């Protein structure tokens, strides 16, 4: 079997720590090292890799597209600023989510203070739209289903939404969620269980006889 040359072999050290002439090395540790060495392309690669999940995560937390984009930008700028303080490069992803969590929560706090946070507290709002004849999930257009999920998500309290989003949408382990949120595993298990139950209750009518 022919052995393909390792991409890593193509890079040539320039003699400066963390600086490489090749732009093909994509392991997290190497990318971080290159960014620390001032390589913008490496930061672009980090952005390409994590922008989508971070934007999704932030969007799930704040529920507004433009705000989510602004906060994603803020997350990356903060990450760039604090990259020198990242001790374990292999945990870049967790670290980025942790920054995103802070950015999103700060924004939510600010918004709450400004708007007095008039949150819809009527579960029926969701149901009123569709409860004449709850359709099976498969019959719903994805867009409509997404609207239902988004509204249901927005009704979770912040901690539950945080944990639920990280577990269900971002598929993070409990350990990673604990690291990102700073919650104990016990708390996050409880929050996750309750969040799942609440979500089930809210989107249940759309799941037809499955629930």
């Amino acid at each position, binding site marked *: 079997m022919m052995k393909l040359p390792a991409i890593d072999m193509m890079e040539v050290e320039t003699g400066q720590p963390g600086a490489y002439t090749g732009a093909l090395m994509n392991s997290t540790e190497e990318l971080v090292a290159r960014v620390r060495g001032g390589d913008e392309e490496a930061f672009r690669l980090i952005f390409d890799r994590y922008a989508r999940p971070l*934007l999704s995560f932030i*969007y*799930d937390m704040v529920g507004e597209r433009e705000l989510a*984009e602004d906060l994603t930008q803020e997350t990356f700028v903060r990450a*760039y600023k*604090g990259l*020198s303080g990242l001790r374990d490069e292999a945990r870049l992803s967790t670290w980025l989510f942790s920054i995103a969590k802070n950015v999103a929560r*700060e924004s939510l706090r*600010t918004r709450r203070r400004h708007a007095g946070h008039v949150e819809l507290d009527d579960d029926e709002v969701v149901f009123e739209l569709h409860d004449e004849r709850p359709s099976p999930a498969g019959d719903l257009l994805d867009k409509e289903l997404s609207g239902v999920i988004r509204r249901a998500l927005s009704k979770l309290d912040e901690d539950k939404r945080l944990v639920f989003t990280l577990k269900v949408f971002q598929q993070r382990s409990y350990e990673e969620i604990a690291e990102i949120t700073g919650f104990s595993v016990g708390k996050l298990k409880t929050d996750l269980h309750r969040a799942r139950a609440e979500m089930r209750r809210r989107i249940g009518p759309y799941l037809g006889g499955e629930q």
Partner: protein
Amino acid sequence: MRCEDCLSVVEEYFDGELETKQTERVSAHMAACADCAAALDALSFEQDIYLRYEREAEVTPALWQQVRAGVGRLDEAEKATRPASPLARLRGRLAASLSALAPRAAFAPTLALLVLGVALGALWLSRTPDHRPAPELASNPAPEGRAAAPPAAQTNTPAAVNDNGTSNKSNQPAPARGAAGLEGAAGVRFVNAGGVNAAVVNPAAAARRAPAAPAPAPPPPADHLREPELLAAAAAESPAVDDVVAAAGVRLLDPEEKEMARHLEQAQALLRSFQNEAPETDAVALAYERRLSRRLLEENASLQLGAETAGREESKQVLDTLEPFLLDIANLRDNASRDEVRSIKERMRKREIIAALTVY
């Protein structure tokens, strides 16, 4: 395993968070219990539904451009606030100033020393055929184009001064003294002694350069001035040196807190100025605030890092609170609408940011 035990961990089982042994027990139970298996299927079904969730948000090229711009501003801030930068700037200015003087007054003592060294060397050679060790001065003639290294005790004497107008390190006082210095055209020298930044004024150097340079009169002859005097003297010498000396003075008093206090003071002034702008303020009138805000934003970023590293939570919190307002002002468009300005003011009022800065 009983059903209630199984159902109590079914989510963890589904999430793959159970230990191996427990996983095996739950699996065995699921294989034999339809109710518990149905609970697991329900979780799986829900997960499938959630994975169909489509968000309105999409990563666009514009987002990267925004990130890039933000990072660019940070880089500029870092360069501007890097401790070495003022010294580097000072060094550049001094080199430029001294090079103008070099062919005239500044080079004369060096040349004189060189000639004296050569003459003494020749005299010594003619009188000592057995080449015994010579007196200290004659045994160390200055290399061509370089000033003689001065004895340690004469740091502030004219002979110890590097006057040739270059930043040649060989002209610096001997490192054995435990202090490496950079002496400027104005006679102000920055000394790093034992890790503590200090500044002393070399009146002799200042006095000697006074006739050649169009600078104000040199400070009174004193080897070591107290800090206020030093700052005043330095301020009188040159505006270019002023910033660096002032910065050195601030570091002397209290490195981090002083910087923080100065930063918050400026931020407070900025926010007050912004807050007090008339509602009909146009973009031109806000240009200064935007510029200042950008500078403070960069400073803020640097201080945030410092506070985080040092574990100064309170400082970091204040800086974190301040940051969004600086960002908002800095990112105001040229033709920002009154509503945008009003919105920032409103948030400032609600967050009571100015009060928060004052209290800190």
